[in-house]
C-alpha cells in the first residue's frame, strides 16, 4: 500500500523538475536576449506624420510612487521633480538645449561682477488660483527657498543667495554672496504665491495645475487655461503608478497607458512593432564609483588597472545592443559646452597593461572586491554583472551586494562605508559645477573620498571666475584630472527609450530628468 504512491511521487517529482527547468530557461532567455537582429527599436519609426490635436486625456506610467510632499523647493526624488516641472516655474526655465529662458521673468540682467541678478517680471503671469504674480510673490519664494529667514536653504547650492528685494512692482534684484554666472540655473526655483505652503496646496504658474493624488495609484494634473506661454495640447495627464516593468509593457500593449519612459532596449524589443519610440540618454554618469580611501583603491595604479581592464563598448554591446554614450569622466554630453569627448578613450581596453599595473601595485594575483548596488536599479545591476565578468580577466573577483535604496543612501553615500558602488549620478540643476564639486577634497558629497591638491585648486579658480570661456577651460581640466587619477571606472550615459501609443507624439528630451507634458499631443 505504501509503495504504490512512491512510483507516482517519482513521476510527479520528475515532471515538476522538467517544468521548473523549462520555466527557468524561459525566464533566463528573455532577460539576457541580445540577438542584435531581432531586437533594437527602429528609431526612424518615431517620425509621426499625424497632425497635432488639441485635447485628450493622456495616461503616463510612472515606475515609482510620488511619495514625498509636493514642495518644489524641497524635492529630492527625481520622479517628483520631473512631475513638478509641469506645475511650477521659476523666474527662468530650461529649454531642450539647456539654455535658460525667461518664464515668470520676461528678461534679466546679470551685473558685471556676476553677483547681482535683476529680473523684470512678465506681464500677466497668473497662478493656478487666478491671482497675478507680483514682485512680492517672487521675494517670498526666493526668501523661502534660500532660507534667508530660517537660515536653512532648502535647495542645494542656493545658499549663494545673499538677499532679494523688489526694486519696483515689476522688478526683483537678487544679490549673491560672490559672483557666480552659473547661479542662473538656481533661478529655476519655483515661484509660489506669497504665504503659501506648496506641501499643503501646490500652486504654481506652469502649463498644468495639480488636481489630485492617490497614494500608490495615480497623480492627476490638468491643463491650466490661463497659462502665459504656449498652452498644453492635452486636457489632463494622469500618472499611473506601475512599479513592475512587465506590467508597464503589458499596459502599453493593452492600451491602458499612452506613454512609458525610461525603458531598456530589451523591453522595447519585447513590445514589437506598432509603437512610437524615441531614443535619448538618461543624463547621468554611470560608473563604478571607487572608495579612494580604502585598500586597494587608495593606490592609483590599481584604479588605472581596473580602467584598462574595462571594455566599455563591450558592456554596451551586451547590455543595450551598443546603445548609450561612452563616458571618460564625470560630465555627461548634455552639458555640450563642458563635455570633454576626448577623455572617453583615455584608457583603451588593454588587459596586459592592466595586469602589469596590478603587479606594480603589489597585486600580481588580483584581489577580491565588492560592488554595492541599490536593488531597485536593474540596469546598474546588469551592468555590474558584465563588469564583474570583465574584471575576472585580470584576477579581480567581484561580488555584487544588493542593498535597498535607503540603506544605500545611509551606508554608502552618507556613511562612505563601502568599497565600490555602481550607480548613475546626475545633476539636480543644469550646472557642470554640480557634477564636479563633489570631488573636491572637503566637499560633504565627496563620498568616494577623492583627494587631489591640483583638483581643489582648479575647482576654486573655476568657481570664482566670472569669465565664461575660462570657466569652460577650467571645468575641462577638472574632468581631465578625474580621468588621469582614475577616480572612478567611468562607463556610460545610459540610453533611454520613451514608448508611446501610435497616436501620441511630441516627446522631447531635456538635458535634465524631466518630462514636458505640455509638448505631447494626440494625432489625428
Amino acid at each position: 500500500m505504501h509503495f504504490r504512491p512512491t512510483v507516482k511521487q517519482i513521476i510527479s517529482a520528475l515532471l515538476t523538475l522538467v517544468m521548473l527547468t523549462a520555466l527557468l530557461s524561459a525566464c533566463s532567455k528573455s532577460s539576457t536576449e541580445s540577438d542584435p537582429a531581432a531586437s533594437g527599436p527602429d528609431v526612424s519609426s518615431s517620425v509621426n506624420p499625424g497632425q497635432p490635436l488639441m485635447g485628450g486625456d493622456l495616461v503616463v506610467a510612472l515606475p515609482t510612487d510620488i511619495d514625498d510632499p509636493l514642495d518644489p523647493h524641497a524635492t529630492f526624488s527625481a520622479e517628483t521633480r520631473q512631475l513638478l516641472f509641469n506645475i511650477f516655474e521659476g523666474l527662468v526655465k530650461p529649454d531642450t538645449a539647456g539654455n535658460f529662458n525667461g518664464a515668470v521673468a520676461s528678461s534679466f540682467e546679470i551685473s558685471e561682477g556676476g553677483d547681482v541678478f535683476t529680473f523684470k517680471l512678465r506681464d500677466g503671469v497668473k497662478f493656478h488660483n487666478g491671482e497675478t504674480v507680483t514682485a512680492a510673490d517672487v521675494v517670498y519664494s526666493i526668501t523661502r527657498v534660500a532660507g534667508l529667514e530660517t537660515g536653512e536653504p532648502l535647495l542645494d547650492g542656493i545658499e549663494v543667495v545673499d538677499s532679494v528685494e523688489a526694486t519696483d512692482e515689476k522688478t526683483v534684484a537678487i544679490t549673491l554672496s560672490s559672483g557666480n554666472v552659473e547661479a542662473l540655473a538656481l533661478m529655476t526655483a519655483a515661484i509660489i504665491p506669497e504665504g503659501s505652503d506648496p506641501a499643503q496646496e501646490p500652486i504654481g504658474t506652469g502649463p498644468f495645475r495639480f488636481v489630485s493624488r492617490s497614494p500608490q495609484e495615480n497623480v492627476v494634473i490638468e491643463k491650466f487655461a490661463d497659462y502665459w506661454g504656449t498652452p498644453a495640447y492635452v486636457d489632463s495627464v494622469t500618472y499611473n503608478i506601475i512599479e513592475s516593468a512587465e506590467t508597464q509593457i503589458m499596459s502599453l500593449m493593452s492600451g491602458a497607458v499612452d506613454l512609458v519612459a525610461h525603458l531598456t532596449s530589451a523591453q522595447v524589443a519585447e513590445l514589437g512593432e506598432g509603437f512610437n519610440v524615441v531614443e535619448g540618454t538618461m543624463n547621468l554618469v554611470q560608473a563604478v564609483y571607487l572608495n579612494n580611501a580604502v585598500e586597494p583603491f587608495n593606490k592609483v595604479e590599481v584604479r588605472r588597472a581596473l580602467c584598462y581592464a574595462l571594455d566599455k563598448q563591450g558592456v554596451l554591446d551586451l547590455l543595450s545592443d551598443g546603445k548609450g554614450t561612452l563616458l571618460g569622466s564625470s560630465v555627461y554630453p548634455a552639458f555640450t559646452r563642458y563635455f570633454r569627448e576626448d577623455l572617453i578613450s583615455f584608457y583603451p581596453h588593454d588587459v596586459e597593461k592592466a595586469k602589469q599595473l596590478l603587479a606594480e601595485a603589489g597585486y600580481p594575483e588580483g584581489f577580491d572586491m565588492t560592488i554595492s548596488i541599490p536593488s531597485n536599479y536593474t540596469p546598474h545591476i546588469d551592468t555590474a554583472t558584465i563588469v564583474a565578468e570583465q574584471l575576472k580577466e585580470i584576477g579581480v573577483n567581484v561580488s555584487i551586494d544588493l542593498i535597498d535604496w535607503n540603506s544605500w543612501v545611509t551606508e554608502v553615500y552618507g556613511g562612505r562605508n563601502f568599497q565600490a558602488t555602481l550607480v548613475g549620478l546626475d545633476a539636480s540643476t543644469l550646472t557642470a559645477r554640480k557634477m564636479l564639486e563633489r570631488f573636491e577634497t572637503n566637499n560633504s558629497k565627496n563620498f568616494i573620498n577623492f583627494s587631489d591638491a591640483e583638483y581643489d585648486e582648479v575647482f576654486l579658480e573655476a568657481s570664482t571666475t566670472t569669465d565664461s570661456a575660462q570657466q569652460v577651460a577650467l571645468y575641462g581640466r577638472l574632468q581631465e584630472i578625474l580621468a588621469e587619477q582614475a577616480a572612478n571606472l567611468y562607463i556610460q550615459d545610459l540610453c533611454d527609450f520613451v514608448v508611446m501609443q501610435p497616436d501620441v507624439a511630441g516627446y522631447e528630451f531635456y538635458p535634465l530628468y524631466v518630462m514636458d507634458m505640455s509638448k505631447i499631443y494626440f494625432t489625428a
Partner: protein
Amino acid sequence: MLYVLKKLGVFLLTLFVISILVFIAFQIIPGDEATNILGAEATPERLEALREQLGLNEPPVTRYFNWLAGFVTGDLGFSRSYNMPVSELLAGKLGITACLTALSFVMVILISFPVGLLLARFAHSVFDRVLMLINQLVMSLPPFFIGIIFTYIFGLVFKLFTPGKFVPLNEDPLRFWGYLIFPALAIALPKSAMVVKLFRGSMVSQFGEDYVRTAFSRGNSRRRVLMHHVVRNALIPVVTFLAFTLVDIVAGSIIIEQVFAIPGIGRLLLSSISGRDLAVVQTITMIIAAIVIAVNNLADLSYKYIDPRVKFR
C-alpha cells in the same frame, strides 16, 4: 468562557510581540524617515533638524511607547511621505486587498472541494492519476508567473480585462470584480492544488479505518460512505491547512498587486518599508497579524462542529 479569555490574552500578547519585532527591525536596518524625505544630497545639519522635528532623536523605548499609546487609543499615526493620517491612507486600500483576498479564498474552496471529492471517489483510477499529475504541476507555479501568463492570455489575447487599468469599486462594481477575478485566480490556483492534494489524501487514508468497513458492510455505496462518513472526518486537517492558506493568500496578494497594478495595502506595505514609514508598516503588520491569528482561532473553534468529540479546555 475561560477558553475565550485565554485565547484573547494570547491574541493580544502575540500582537504586542510582533509590534516589538517590527520596531526592532526598523532600528536595525540602516536609514530612517529623514533620509527618505531629504534624499541622498541632504546635508547632515538638515537631516539632524528634521530628525529633531519628527521626534526621531528620542530614545527608541520612548518612541515605541508613544506609538503604542497612540495605537491602542485609535491614533494610527501620520504618514510623512503622503502627508496624511495613516487611517485615511489605509481606508481605501484595505477594502481592495480584503476583496482580493476574500475572492481568492472563496475560489480556493470552490475549486478544491469538488475536485478533491471527485479524486477521492475515483482514487487510484487512471483519471485520478492524470489529474493528480496536473495538480502537482499547478502546485509548483508561483502566483506572479501565473499572473503574467493570465495577463497575456486573458488580457491581451482574449481581451477579457484591460491590463493596467484597475477600476475602483465606487466607479463600476461589475468591472471592479471583473478586474479582480484573474489576480484572485492567480493566487488561488496553486493554493487550491495543495488543498486538493491534502483533502484527497486525507479522505483516501480514512478508507482504511474500521468505521468505513462497517459502513460498507451495511451495504452502503462508495459514494454514500464518502459523503456521509468520510468527508467529515477528513475535514479536520484540511480546515487547519485552509487557515494557513489564508495567510499565504495575503502574502500572495502583496506580489500580485504589483503584477496587476492594484492599489491595495500590499504595494503600500512594500513602499512603506523602503520609505521607512514606520507608522504605516506597523499598522499594516498589525492588521495582517490580527487576521492571521483570528483565522487560526476560528479554525480551532470549527473543529468542535466538525467532530463533536473535540473538547475545549
